């Protein structure tokens, strides 16, 4: 459902209304040094100013003209008259269309030391000048109830002030040397059940209580959580088109994270196994205590119960294991967790984590895990730079993050996550925070992902951490239901099984054109194609992979028939013949049929013993 538009801007002191952005103040001047198309005509600047003064969306605050004759003689048309006016974004946008109009923001200036417009994380560099000003913010939600424990960040020129709302939904934040006019942004991140809120240049008033109403998740998803939600990411990966009996039953999935609220959350009640590595020795039951909520969120995406309420996971009947290493997770605890996964015979491991460091020991452990058939799916990282470790390991499947337009309110923080340098593809965009690089295998849904959080709530989060469990969940479905893993060479646990799994995920992905393939890898994984449920033409890599498989399989059959004397002469297989094939045949079914035919021919003595497949 598309997000509801923001409420009208408040005309007086904001009380129980949405906080909107303050209009900006601009400097306006005429530049007659540029060429103007004849159709447009010369700009009549005094007339324009007259019109602006009459426009209710514009407030002309003053004019700056040269004060001396010398200044007038040295000036240009630009400096002859500068108008200072506060106006809406729409009015400003309209003005900039005329080539002779110069419009610049009348930016605030500060006493030295100069303050960078970006948030400076070093408090030592923040200006100590000025008095402290406080803003009180009260949050209300559904039915005017206070929203408690929401994180609130107020950005001035330096380090933001932050706090959490109390039992009355209120928090007071103080900044030094700032005023109502210098506030740059307000960010509210509720603990659960509401959308986040981001306001540029918030129209807050110090010394009073500014009451804001947050949007409930239910506003966007009617009936949720009483009725089950299939997330946009799951729909984008076409989980909704997968048969209901594909549940990942029996596949062992581990989530190396912060544990899961298995005792309290209805969508996580099916999780019965886990271990805690945050203490020495490892605790038995602490994995059920998810103080960060991150592991609960990831676990819901993978295996949220199919119970008609809340959220729906990819593989609700997978055997879930929680390997708790957060808070305080380090490489050593991750190694311990991988050891646990090996010992427990885990099939797929979700690692929504990373570090800027590296470790040969962990690399060796991940290689060992793969050799033993443990498939590790790892987040690319959220620092917006190169892929983080262990996403750089050659033995894992690395996942970047993307979002989709229309799946979140535009005043939520999710709207800030668009990678603005690139382009959108089918409404999808690369997430600005997503790490990227040649190591990225696929790109998963990772903006505005609604999933379970302790104790019984739901929250909409961003991150490659959220993209990764989408892929892990699909891996569980593939291992549980793809014919390749039910019998034959890939049924037994080992490196070739992991390779085959990753190859299927990549090969059936829908390519994404964000302007940099390092941000999307093979693209968005597709559940229907990966599971071999669709034989119709598909875009890009998936289609190519299938056509290659079909061609190779036909070549094998051709060779066998020639060997058996069933074909009189060797012919070159016409690649166009591929197009004549029944499109409902998938590579997998063809491979299986060829194997069966080969076995029958061998039994009939027409060819030698079956050979290992080459596809």
């Amino acid at each position: 459902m598309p997000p509801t538009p923001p409420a009208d801007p408040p005309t007086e002191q904001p009380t129980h209304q949405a906080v909107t952005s303050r209009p900006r103040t601009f400097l306006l001047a005429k530049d007659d040094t540029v060429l103007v198309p004849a159709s447009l005509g010369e700009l009549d600047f005094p007339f324009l100013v007259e019109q602006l003064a009459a426009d209710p969306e514009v407030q002309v605050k003053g004019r700056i003209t040269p004060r001396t004759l010398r200044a007038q003689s040295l000036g240009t048309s630009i400096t002859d008259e500068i108008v200072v006016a506060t106006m809406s974004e729409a009015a400003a946008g309209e003005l900039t269309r005329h080539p002779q109009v110069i419009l610049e923001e009348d930016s605030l200036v500060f006493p030295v030391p100069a303050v960078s417009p970006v948030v400076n994380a070093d408090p030592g560099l923040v200006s100590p000048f000025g008095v402290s000003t406080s803003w009180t913010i009260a949050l209300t939600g559904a039915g005017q109830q206070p929203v408690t424990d929401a994180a609130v960040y107020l950005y001035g020129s330096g380090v933001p002030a932050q706090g959490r709302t109390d039992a009355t939904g209120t928090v007071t934040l103080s900044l030094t040397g700032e005023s109502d006019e210098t506030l740059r942004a307000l960010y509210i991140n509720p603990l659960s059940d509401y959308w986040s809120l981001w306001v540029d240049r918030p129209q807050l008033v110090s010394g009073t209580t500014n009451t804001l109403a947050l949007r409930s998740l239910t506003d966007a998803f009617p009936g949720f959580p009483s009725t089950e939600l299939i997330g946009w990411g799951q729909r984008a990966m076409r989980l909704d088109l997968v048969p209901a009996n594909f549940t990942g039953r029996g596949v062992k999935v581990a989530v190396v994270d912060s544990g899961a609220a298995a005792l309290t959350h209805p969508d996580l009640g099916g999780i019965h196994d886990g271990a805690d590595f945050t203490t020495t020795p490892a605790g038995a039951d602490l994995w059920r205590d998810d103080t960060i909520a991150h592991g609960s969120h990831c676990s819901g995406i993978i295996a949220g119960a199919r119970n008609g309420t809340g959220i729906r996971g990819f593989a609700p009947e997978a055997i879930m294991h929680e390997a708790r290493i957060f808070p305080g997770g380090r490489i050593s605890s991750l190694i311990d967790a991988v050891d646990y996964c090996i010992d427990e015979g885990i099939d797929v491991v979700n690692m929504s984590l990373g570090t800027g460091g590296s470790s040969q020991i962990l690399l060796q452990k991940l290689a060992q895990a793969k050799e033993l058939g443990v498939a590790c799916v790892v987040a690319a990282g959220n620092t917006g730079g190169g892929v983080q470790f262990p996403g750089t390991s050659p033995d894992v499947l690395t996942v970047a993050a993307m979002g989709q337009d229309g799946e979140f309110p535009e005043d939520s923080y999710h709207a800030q996550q668009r990678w603005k340098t690139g382009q959108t593809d089918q409404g999808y965009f690369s997430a600005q925070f997503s790490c990227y690089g040649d190591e990225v295998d696929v790109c998963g849904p990772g903006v505005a992902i609604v999933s379970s959080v302790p104790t019984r709530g739901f929250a909409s989060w961003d991150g490659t951490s959220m993209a990764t469990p989408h892929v892990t969940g699909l891996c569980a479905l593939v291992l549980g239901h793809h014919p390749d893993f039910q019998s034959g060479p890939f049924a037994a646990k080992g490196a070739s099984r992991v390779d085959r799994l990753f190859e299927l995920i990549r090969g059936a992905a829908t390519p994404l054109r964000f302007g940099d393939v390092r941000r999307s890898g093979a693209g968005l994984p597709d559940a229907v194609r990966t599971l071999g449920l669709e034989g119709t033409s598909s875009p890009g890599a998936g289609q190519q992979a299938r056509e290659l498989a079909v061609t190779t399989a036909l070549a094998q059959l051709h060779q066998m028939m020639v060997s058996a004397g069933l074909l009189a002469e060797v012919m070159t297989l016409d690649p166009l013949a591929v197009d004549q094939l029944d499109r409902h045949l998938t590579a997998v079914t063809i491979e299986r049929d060829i194997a069966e035919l080969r076995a029958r021919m061998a039994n009939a003595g027409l060819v030698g013993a079956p050979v290992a497949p080459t596809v």
Partner: protein
Amino acid sequence: MPKPFEQFIIAGDTSVIKPMLDILNADPESAVLSVSRNTQTDPERLVVSMDPSRAAALQAALGALVLIEPDDPLNL
């Protein structure tokens, strides 16, 4: 003010790690935080808190026999 200790992972063959564990346990300037053991209960991996220069000296002394790496924190 005491030097800040950092956390390191030490891994290698149990024939090396076993005596190393004894040495580090006896070392007042190191603290063994955890020991991972193989199925034969022999130590194969240690997490040790020590001064970085001491870790570098150990790595230089033992060469390829062990791997000593910073036990970096992970981010979610």
